[in-house]
């Protein structure tokens, strides 16, 4: 196959992506072995790959994953319920929207995780601190996207509803909500990603729970290869999670 034909192949981007990653790992491995990178700061990729089996069998990474996944699930359910309800309230009450929209948007940019000592005082050193920080950090995108989706319903669709004499409840359930659903789901997707980042981050900070705590434990034991392997596992989970959500979003938006 010629280079031109290869570049046209649908597999080409995936192959180039995988080759770039492999190339990067090989380059890091060589630089470490040559002493250009301190192996006590960055362990060789070969050692990290070799540690995967160990973190699965000895460090019970899958059990840790279940804990993190459960915390993310609770956070996800909470941001979906409260975020959509919040967005609808802001849409329903103009004064509330004008009063709060900027604050909510500002909260989306705030590093809520820094307030973890306050949450520890409020909820104790347990899963609730992790869930609540994830909840507060991930709530704004759901509220804002719900508001955007409902307010952005095309005028003509509302007029179709009016021409069929729909009541305001029917307008909401039969037109505004389904029209807004793809945008709302984008908010939920962003919220879930924020939730995952914050949940793992707080687990690490307060040394409690699932994958974040595992990374903390391994780092404190100075098991660098294990630490990096666990970080790679979290990245892998995040990527798979993102792909899954993207697929769900495409299913929800069958056509544009």
């Amino acid at each position: 196959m010629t280079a031109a034909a290869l570049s046209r192949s649908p597999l080409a981007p995936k192959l180039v992506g995988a080759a770039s990653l492999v190339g990067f790992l090989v380059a890091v491995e060589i630089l470490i072995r040559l002493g250009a990178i301190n192996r006590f700061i960055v362990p060789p990729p070969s050692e990290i790959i070799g540690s995967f089996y160990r973190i699965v069998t000895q460090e019970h990474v899958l059990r840790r994953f279940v804990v993190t996944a459960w915390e993310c699930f609770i956070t996800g359910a909470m941001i979906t319920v409260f975020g959509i309800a919040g967005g609808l309230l802001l849409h329903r009450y103009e004064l509330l929207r004008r009063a709060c929209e900027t604050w909510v948007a500002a909260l989306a940019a705030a590093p809520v995780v820094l307030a973890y000592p306050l949450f520890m005082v409020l909820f104790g050193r347990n899963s609730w601190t992790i869930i609540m920080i994830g909840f507060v950090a991930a709530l704004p995108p759901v509220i804002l996207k719900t508001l955007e989706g409902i307010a952005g319903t095309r005028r003509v669709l509302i007029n179709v509803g009016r021409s069929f004499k729909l009541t305001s409840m029917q307008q909401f359930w039969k037109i505004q909500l389904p029209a807004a659903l793809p945008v709302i789901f984008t908010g939920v997707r962003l919220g879930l990603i924020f939730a995952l980042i914050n949940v793992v981050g707080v687990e690490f900070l307060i040394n409690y729970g699932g994958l974040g705590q595992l990374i903390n434990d391994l780092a404190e034991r100075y098991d660098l290869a294990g630490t990096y392997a666990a970080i790679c596992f979290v990245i892998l989970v995040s990527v798979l999670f993102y792909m899954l959500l993207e697929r769900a979003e495409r299913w929800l938006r069958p056509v544009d």
Partner: protein
Amino acid sequence: MAAEPILVVNDVVVGFDTAEGPLLAVDHVSFDVRPGEFLSVIGPSGCGKSTLFNVIGGLLTHTQGRVAVAGEQINGPHPSIGMVFQEESTFPWRTVIDNVAFPLELVDLPKPQRVERARHFIALVGLDGFENRYPGELSGGMRQRVSLARTLASEPKILLMDEPFAALDEQTRLLLGDKVLQIQQQLKQTTLLITHNITEAVQMSDRILVMTYRPGQVKRIVDIALPRPRTSFIVSSDAFGRYVAEIWGDLREEASRGMRDEESHALHRGEAPT
């Protein structure tokens, strides 16, 4: 004796407050539509055609005058009037059959009858086979036919359309005009079409109401005495050409006035005219 009109528009006035002061969009417009008739309202951009569409559809309140359907004065959307909008208005989250069945759901028709009725109207607009497709999988012309079928499914006494084919190319527009004509003749559907397209109006109408540029007034009502049933082949006849020329004669002056007005506004605002 002529049949009683099914739609009466009597002395309707619509005004708006704009940043540049009060604007009279529709000025003492009166006309009526008889059962089974196809009437087109034609005028240049800015003559208040769409305002009139919204007033008759009950989506906009008029300042003065009276709009009545079958003797009943309307003060909001009326079940006897089915509206087809200029913009694409299908529900993208519903399949074609679910879009068309929408008004039937609202009256709680049992599902088997609903599906049967929806299929009937889908076939009527020539979309059989596309029942389970989503609007995003259809062309612009097909989506407008879905909107038309959805409106027809509510079995309105009056079909009210606002430039439904404006976004389509000329050939598709002629073919869809054929389809609308065929449906209108088959169902004897009273139809009121708002348009700025002269050929479309002459191709389909029994009468054409020509409006003046702002404020929108009735300039003249032209009877189109072309034979029925009609198809798009009518556009090649001499009589068709004469009607088009006659209406263009009326419209040219109004359209020029509209263009001059737009240009003068653009000059004052320092913008390019649209």
